[in-house]
């Protein structure tokens, strides 16, 4: 028997845009069902550079994209204060760079006009000596440097904060739930059929179905009998499990593209590539030549990069709008809201293109389109209403730490994920034990996430709370984490063990491409440690 439900809108796709749309529509009073085939933010969103940026490189192509991007970044920074932090770039200019120092500073002077929109400071120009004083690891032959400020963000938490707020406003949201079919009725899309993690099929009727599946949107559009044209672009990042520099560093690759080494909370992302992608969207591999391309590009401005050990890679596909141009990098990150009514699929709306920094605006415009179709007048309030955890100022980390018996660092990290709800999170598990010591993550937080944040696997826990994200890659914590999650979800001992093994296997796939770079010796140690843990628990 097929279970059936009815709502105003079904949103397909639980990346940041889909989650933003679900939040926006539910805050306007509509009943919403949000469906994601994997985990929240596990696709393109999670494989981003983890930045809310204004897009200075779009100044060369389209100032309006930069303005809109900065404006929306400003809104995101306001509603998600606990999730964002300043990222300051040093942009060194070397001999033979595409842009000389004067051109580079001109671009930053123009960008400064937009910076106040996102509450960022204007640029500075540094002499070679000053740049080397700020970051002694820069190449000594630099001609000078300019700085640029952006915002860093944990995209997984940003997505979930949107999901959480949608739920708080009455939406229903399911991860690991795949849409198998769109229900068509004489030129109209009237709902979806979807498969839950237990394999059961349900039906959801809706007045509007929104396709917010990023690079998967052409596949979903085909279910409605219409076409969406994208030019998917693959981007990879190398992840270093620590800060390499307090400043983020920009460099020019061998083919003149901009590469970024971004200093996030406790790790560094080096990226990104931008190549046309024609492969399987559910299996995007990282190639060794892509790794070499990134390291070579950064090495030119930061020669010590090869002394550092990347711990894993990320790979994703951008849903770039289709355009016939030579270089992928020049394609605009503009977006488009498509009402497919004219193509014979009334009630079906797609949102394509765009980028993380503009997700809220994309969600607002898509929601406007949906409301127009439904004849609803309500306006969006997502630009001003805080996301969960930002309604009030959090307790100082040291105070929370002493009250709850955890290290101040753990309290600080907890607050970056949960804001003012951090104490509520710690109360849930009634334990102050640290589970992942690298990050660090408390056992209470993992219990809370499993109970209230739809953690269904250890990979979900990695995204939600950062478990096993540190230098040991889970060697010291993953079995214990499997026990905690398993206890909450009713797993047997062997299911918990299998979950840990699956996580380790998945982590290995992301790590293998970077082991050629200082990694093998330490990998041997880490693998030994991992095997030891497993053997000590006896044969399975």
């Amino acid at each position, binding site marked *: 028997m097929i279970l059936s439900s009815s709502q105003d809108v079904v949103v397909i796709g639980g990346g940041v845009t889909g989650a933003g749309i679900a939040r926006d529509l539910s805050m306007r009073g509509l009943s919403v069902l949000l469906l994601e085939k994997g985990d929240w933010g596990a696709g393109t969103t999670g494989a981003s550079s983890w930045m809310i940026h204004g897009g200075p490189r779009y100044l060369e*192509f389209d100032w309006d994209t930069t303005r809109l991007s900065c404006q929306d970044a400003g809104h995101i920074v306001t509603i998600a204060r606990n999730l964002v932090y300043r990222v300051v770039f040093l942009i060194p200019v070397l001999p033979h760079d595409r842009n000389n120092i004067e051109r580079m500073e001109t671009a930053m002077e123009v960008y400064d006009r937009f910076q106040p929109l996102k509450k960022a400071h204007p640029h500075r120009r540094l002499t070679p000596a*000053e740049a080397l004083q700020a970051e002694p690891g820069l190449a000594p032959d630099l001609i000078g440097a300019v700085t640029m400020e952006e915002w860093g963000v944990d995209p997984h938490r940003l997505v979930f904060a949107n999901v959480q707020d949608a739920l708080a406003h009455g939406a229903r949201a399911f991860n690991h739930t795949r849409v198998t079919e769109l229900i068509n009725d004489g030129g109209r899309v009237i709902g979806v059929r979807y498969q839950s993690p237990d394999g059961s099929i349900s039906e959801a009727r809706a007045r509007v179905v929104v396709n917010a599946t990023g690079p998967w949107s052409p596949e979903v559009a085909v279910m409605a009998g219409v076409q969406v044209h994208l030019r998917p672009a693959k981007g990879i990042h190398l992840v270093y499990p620590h800060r390499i520099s307090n400043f983020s560093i920009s460099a020019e690759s061998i083919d003149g593209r901009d590469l970024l080494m971004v200093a996030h909370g406790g790790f560094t992302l080096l990226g990104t590539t931008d190549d046309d992608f024609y492969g399987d969207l559910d299996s995007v591999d990282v190639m060794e030549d892509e790794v070499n391309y990134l390291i070579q590009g950064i090495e030119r401005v930061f020669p010590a990069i090869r002394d550092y050990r990347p711990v894993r890679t990320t790979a994703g596909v951008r849903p770039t709008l289709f355009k016939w141009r030579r270089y992928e990098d020049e394609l605009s990150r503009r977006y488009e809201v498509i009402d497919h009514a004219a193509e014979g699929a009334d009630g079906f709306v797609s949102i394509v293109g765009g980028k993380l920094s503009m997700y809220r605006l994309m969600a607002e415009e898509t929601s406007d389109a949906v409301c127009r179709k439904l004849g609803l007048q309500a306006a969006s309030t997502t630009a001003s209403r805080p996301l969960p955890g930002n309604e009030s100022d959090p307790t100082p980390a040291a105070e929370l730490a002493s009250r709850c018996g955890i290290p101040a660092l753990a309290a600080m990290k907890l607050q970056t994920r949960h804001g003012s709800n951090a104490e509520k999170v710690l109360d849930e598990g009634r334990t102050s034990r640290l589970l992942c010591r690298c990050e660090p993550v408390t056992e209470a937080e993992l219990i809370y996430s499993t109970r209230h944040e739809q953690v269904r696997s250890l990979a979900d826990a990695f995204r939600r709370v950062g478990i096993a994200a540190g230098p040991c890659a889970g060697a010291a914590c993953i079995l214990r984490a499997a026990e905690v999650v398993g206890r909450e979800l009713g797993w047997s001992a062997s299911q918990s063990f299998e979950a840990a093994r699956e996580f380790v296997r998945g982590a290995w796939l992301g790590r293998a491409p970077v082991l050629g770079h200082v990694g093998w010796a330490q990998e041997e140690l880490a693998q030994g440690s991992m095997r030891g843990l497993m053997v000590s628990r006896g044969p399975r």
Partner: protein
Amino acid sequence: MARADSLAKLAFAYGVHLTRRRLRRPRPQLSSLLRTYAADGIQAIEPAERDRHPRLVTCINCGLCALAGGRVGKTRLPDLASSYMRLYARLGEASSDVEGGSPDLLAAAAVCPVGLPLDEVAAVVRRLSTR
């Protein structure tokens, strides 16, 4: 069209910039940069520390130093190396964790399988957390 318009505006801005550079004498900006971001924990790294830095972040959290050493303040040695050292900024907010005595860090470092100089790590973390 947008591209041509953008390039024209950039060209104009470039002209203005060059003129301004000719008329105004550039001033040092590093100290104001560091002042601006001091509250965010974004500070310059020292040259000697930069050279040693790749060695200071190699901890794989095997835990052996915890058996040989103990704690720096309230913090276990493996946490100091795998957790505090990797953050580098904002450590001022966690200064209470590393206040207090230190164990024999050289003895603890002797058992480290990746040869991490724990005494240097402790010194860096303490310096950053007291800023």
